[in-house]
C-alpha cells in the first residue's frame, strides 16, 4: 500500500494534473495506434494516470515523468493485449480503428481516386502498426507520436542507439510493404473510371 502523507498527496494531485495537461494527448495517441480502439485507448491512459498517482511516492523528482508514464502505459497495453488476445489479431481483422473511420466510398468529397488510395493505405498501415511486435512498435511510436530523440528512446527502452536505428528501419520497411501490398490491387486502380 502506498501511504502518502497529506502534504505529499496534495503535491501528487497537482503534479498529476499537470502531467495530464502535458502528456495525456500523446499517451492516448500512442495507445490508440496499438489497440486500435478509442474506448480502450482512453481506458488505458486513465489506468496509467491512476497507477502513476498511486505510485507517485516512488517517483524520484528530477527523473523524466514522460518516460515514467510511458513505461506504465506500455505495461498496461501489454496486459491489455494479453487479456484480450489481441496480439493474435491477423491483418484481416476488421474490428479496428480504421474500420470505424468513415467509408471513403460513402463520402461525397472522396470521389478522387487518390483519396481512396490514401484511405486504404492508411487502414493497412494502422493494422500493421497494431500488429508490430512490441520491440519494433515501441521505438517507432516513441519517435512518431511522442517525438522523442534517438537518445531518449535508447535510454527509455534500455537499448543502444544503434538498435533504435535498426529497429526503426526494419519497422518502416515492414510497414511500407504492408501499405504497398494493400494498394497494389489492380481492380482498384481502375475504379476511378466508373464514377
Amino acid at each position, binding site marked *: 500500500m502506498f501511504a502518502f502523507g497529506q502534504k505529499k498527496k496534495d503535491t501528487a494531485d497537482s503534479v498529476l494534473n499537470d502531467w495530464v495537461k502535458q502528456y495525456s*494527448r500523446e499517451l492516448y495517441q500512442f495507445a*490508440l495506434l496499438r489497440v486500435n480502439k478509442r474506448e480502450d485507448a482512453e481506458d488505458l491512459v486513465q489506468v496509467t494516470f491512476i497507477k502513476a498517482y498511486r505510485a507517485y511516492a516512488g517517483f524520484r523528482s528530477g527523473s523524466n515523468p514522460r518516460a515514467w508514464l510511458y513505461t506504465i502505459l506500455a505495461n498496461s497495453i501489454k496486459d491489455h493485449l494479453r487479456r484480450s488476445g489481441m496480439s493474435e489479431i491477423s491483418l484481416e481483422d476488421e474490428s479496428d480503428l480504421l474500420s470505424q473511420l468513415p467509408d471513403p466510398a460513402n463520402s461525397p468529397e472522396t470521389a478522387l481516386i487518390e483519396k481512396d488510395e490514401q484511405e486504404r*493505405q492508411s487502414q493497412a498501415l494502422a493494422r500493421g502498426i497494431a500488429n508490430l511486435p512490441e520491440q519494433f512498435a515501441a521505438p517507432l511510436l516513441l519517435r512518431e507520436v511522442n517525438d522523442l530523440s*534517438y537518445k531518449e528512446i535508447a535510454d527509455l527502452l534500455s537499448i543502444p542507439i544503434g538498435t533504435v536505428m535498426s529497429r526503426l528501419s526494419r519497422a518502416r520497411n515492414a510497414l511500407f510493404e504492408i501499405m504497398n501490398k494493400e494498394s497494389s490491387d489492380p481492380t482498384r486502380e481502375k475504379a476511378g473510371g466508373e464514377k
Partner: protein
Amino acid sequence: MKNSSQGETCRNCRELIGAALDNELSSGETAELMGHLDSCPHCREEWDKFLAVKAGIKNILEKEPVPAHLEKNLSAALAKESGRSKRRQSITMAMAAILVALTGLAFLNGKSLTEKSNSSKISSNAKEQAAAQRLAEIVDATSHNTDNTNCQDCLVNFVGRKAGDEMTKLAGFAVLDSKLGSFELSGSDLVQVKDGNKLVRLCYTSKTDKRVNCIDVYQAPSGTITIAQATEIEINGKKLRQGKIGRQAVVQYTAAGTDLTFVSPLSQEELTALVKPNV
C-alpha cells in the same frame, strides 16, 4: 562519401536516411546525404519509402483527433482517486457497515438485515471486525481504474466496459446491466478472491451530475454480499435493502440469483430513485 565506391556510399546513405528524416543528423550530414539523393534514384526510393510511412502515421493521427473530453475525464478520475486515498485511512472502519461474507468467513450478524439500528454503531465483535477488515481490502481494491495494489488475497482485473452477457461469461454468475438515469457504464472489474469467489464491480459515471463521480455496482451470487444494519423497503413487491458505507449510500436488491449492491455519494433518496426502475 566522395571517396567511397558507389555501393559503399549507398550503404552509408541508407543508414542515414531514417536519421535524417528524424532530425537526428547535423545540417552538414544532411546536406551531404541530400547531395547523394539527387544523383542516386535507388537511395531516393528508400527516402520516399520512409517518408511515406512517416506521412502515413501523421495522417492517421490527424484523422483520429484526441477526444475533447480526455483531459477532463482524467482530471475527474484523479480527483476521485484522490478522494479515495484520503478516505483510505478511515475506510476500514466505515466498511464495517457493509459485510461481504466469502467462503471461509463466518456469515455474520444474520438478523441485522431486518434490524433497525444506529448505523454509526460499530460492532466490537472480533470476528466481525476481521471480516470488515477483509471486506475493506476487497472493496477498496476493486477500483475500475487500476490493477490491485492493496488487496492481499484478491486479484483485480480491469476488463474495460463490459456488462451483461460478456461479464457473465467472465464471472460465472449472472451479471446484470443497470439503468441509472443519465449515468453510463465507464469501467468494469472482475475481482477474484484466492478462495475462488468472484465479485464484479461496475462503475457508472455521469456526464451531467458534477457532484458525483460514479455509482459503483458490486455484483456477486446471492448471499455473498450482506449489508449490516440495513433497513428494508418494498418496491414492486421486491425487497430493497438500504444502508450506509461511510458517507456513501448503499442500496441492494437481489435478482436472477445475484445481489446487486449500489454504492454512491448521492443521497439515499436519490440513489434509491435511480435504482428503482431496475427492481
